[in-house]
């Protein structure tokens, strides 16, 4: 039995798992973590146009595609380790391509808001130990981060907040989710009305309740007054927001408004706001290019230096505009997770895929390179959703190459071809 296994599924990156090597089974992890640490169908061998080849041959072909492309898109990165992402950023610069990552269709609107307003944040440890009010806004951790509530935010036992009774949990969502069932209060809002509701709360808290109408986005003024009161009276409050806020009308502006609400509350008490990040290292997929090139996503290197512009260089925009002539997809499955208008172009260009598992992108990829599962078969560093770096372990041996190994070789080949 391996102790303290670090789970590489969701952004909670639980560090207390156990793994029974003989039975190939995990203990203590949630349904998502258990599925991560279980036997699944794998991509058996590297392939070029469906024909099995050696790693060397597949990597050579991949390098050829990237070098011959005018503007390749290198996308994914959320489910791999920082060491691999670092090589990915260097590779993107070498081939003068576009670097984009999964947050682009997940929490990147929050990044845009942070550029505007900053981020009054705190670690998950601080939330666990101190937060007497936790608001999940458009977030459903019971399905997306099942142990988050137990370890940090709902029933977690902390230093100052010792049990569930000392913490008020509020869920703001458009439907009664599983998380809403565990909350002390559930506030159901109309889809796309996050922005005006946040504005109403700002008005009430700043002493301008008279301008708030009787109802905003499906919530009565009375209810909003009550919520504002709870927020003002909190000793340490946390808004933990999910894709309900970033993927609906308003997107980045919703978060920007929420950050302003937090700034207002921080004049009299202590509040933090933090995104409930999805993949285990989607934070790394943004942080690593940020410390390498200055930006978190949607980075174009076609002029030889990095330029950031999500309206132009985010994967969905690039694909919709047919503005890339090859793609390398790693640790992600855009064929399953992009709108169909973006998937269409992926079907028309040469695609290289690096991933442990067959998925929808495999079905359209020309070069498929199977990789080891980080956290199970390969080690490396990942950032937990609150930016805490954790060293994920290699628990079992594997014939598969790690993402880091594959990218190292690919980079070497690209440099060789470019001369």
């Amino acid at each position, binding site marked *: 039995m391996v102790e303290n296994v670090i789970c590489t599924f969701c952004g909670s990156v639980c560090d207390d798992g156990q793994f029974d090597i003989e039975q190939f089974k995990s203990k203590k992890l949630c349904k998502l973590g258990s599925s991560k640490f279980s036997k699944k169908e794998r991509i058996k061998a590297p392939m070029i146009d469906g024909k099995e080849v050696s790693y060397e041959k597949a990597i050579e072909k991949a390098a050829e595609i990237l070098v011959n492309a005018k503007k390749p898109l290198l996308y994914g990165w959320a489910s791999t380790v920082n060491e691999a992402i670092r090589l990915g950023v260097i590779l993107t610069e070498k081939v003068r391509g576009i670097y984009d990552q999964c947050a682009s269709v997940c929490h990147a609107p929050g990044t845009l808001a942070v550029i505007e307003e900053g981020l009054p944040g705190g670690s998950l440890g601080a939330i666990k130990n101190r937060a007497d009010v936790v608001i999940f806004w458009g977030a459903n951790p*019971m399905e997306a981060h099942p142990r988050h509530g137990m370890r940090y935010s709902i029933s977690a036992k902390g230093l100052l907040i010792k049990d569930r009774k000392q913490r008020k949990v509020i869920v703001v969502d458009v439907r009664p989710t599983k998380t809403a069932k565990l909350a002390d209060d559930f506030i159901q809002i109309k*889809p796309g009305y996050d922005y005006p509701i946040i504005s109403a709360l700002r008005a009430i808290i700043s002493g301008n309740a008279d301008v708030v109408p009787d109802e905003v986005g499906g919530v009565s003024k009375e209810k909003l007054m009550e919520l504002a009161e709870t927020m003002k009276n909190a000793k340490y409050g946390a808004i933990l927001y999910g894709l309900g806020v970033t993927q609906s009308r308003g997107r980045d502006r919703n978060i920007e408004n929420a950050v302003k609400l937090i700034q207002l509350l921080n004049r009299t008490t202590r509040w933090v706001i933090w995104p409930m990040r999805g993949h285990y290292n989607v934070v790394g997929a943004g942080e690593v290019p940020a410390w390498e090139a200055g930006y978190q996503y949607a980075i174009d290197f076609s002029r030889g230096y990095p330029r950031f512009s999500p309206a132009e260089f985010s994967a969905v925009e690039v694909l919709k505009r047919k503005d890339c002539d090859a793609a390398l997809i790693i640790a992600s499955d855009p064929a399953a997770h992009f*709108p*169909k208008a973006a998937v269409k172009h992926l079907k028309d260009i040469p695609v290289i895929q690096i991933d442990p598992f067959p998925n929808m992108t495999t*079905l359209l990829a020309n070069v498929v390179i199977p990789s080891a599962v980080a956290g199970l078969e390969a080690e490396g560093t990942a950032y937990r959703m609150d930016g805490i770096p954790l060293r994920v372990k290699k628990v079992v041996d594997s014939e598969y190459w790690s993402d880091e190994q594959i990218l190292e070789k690919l980079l070497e080949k690209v440099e060789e071809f470019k001369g």
Partner: protein
Amino acid sequence: MLEVEVISGRTLNQGATVEEKLTEEYFNAVNYAELNEEDWDTLGLQEGDRVKVKTEFGEVVVFAKKGNVPKGMIFIPMGPYANMVIDPSTDGTGMPQFKGVKGTVEKTDDKVLSVKELLEAI
């Protein structure tokens, strides 16, 4: 036919099968729409029925399920089926509108395409 607002999002089953996309388990985890009970009755749906969801961006056939959603809203788990009908415009942010897209839902006899067929149809 009913006018609805389409939202998508994660579910536990979607997450647990996300690394097995070409299996029956994943197909079952993402190929349905949850409707409010009242909307379910209005459309005269029965267990196992299919519905066609249409928006200005596309259409998709999925299985119908009774779910805990407000009247006038349907929920499709994030994935290839939801992505056939969501709004691909990003308002300059890079983020398509995966939630809150106006559309219609109607009962249909058409079959639910497999994940592979869906990709071929794009």
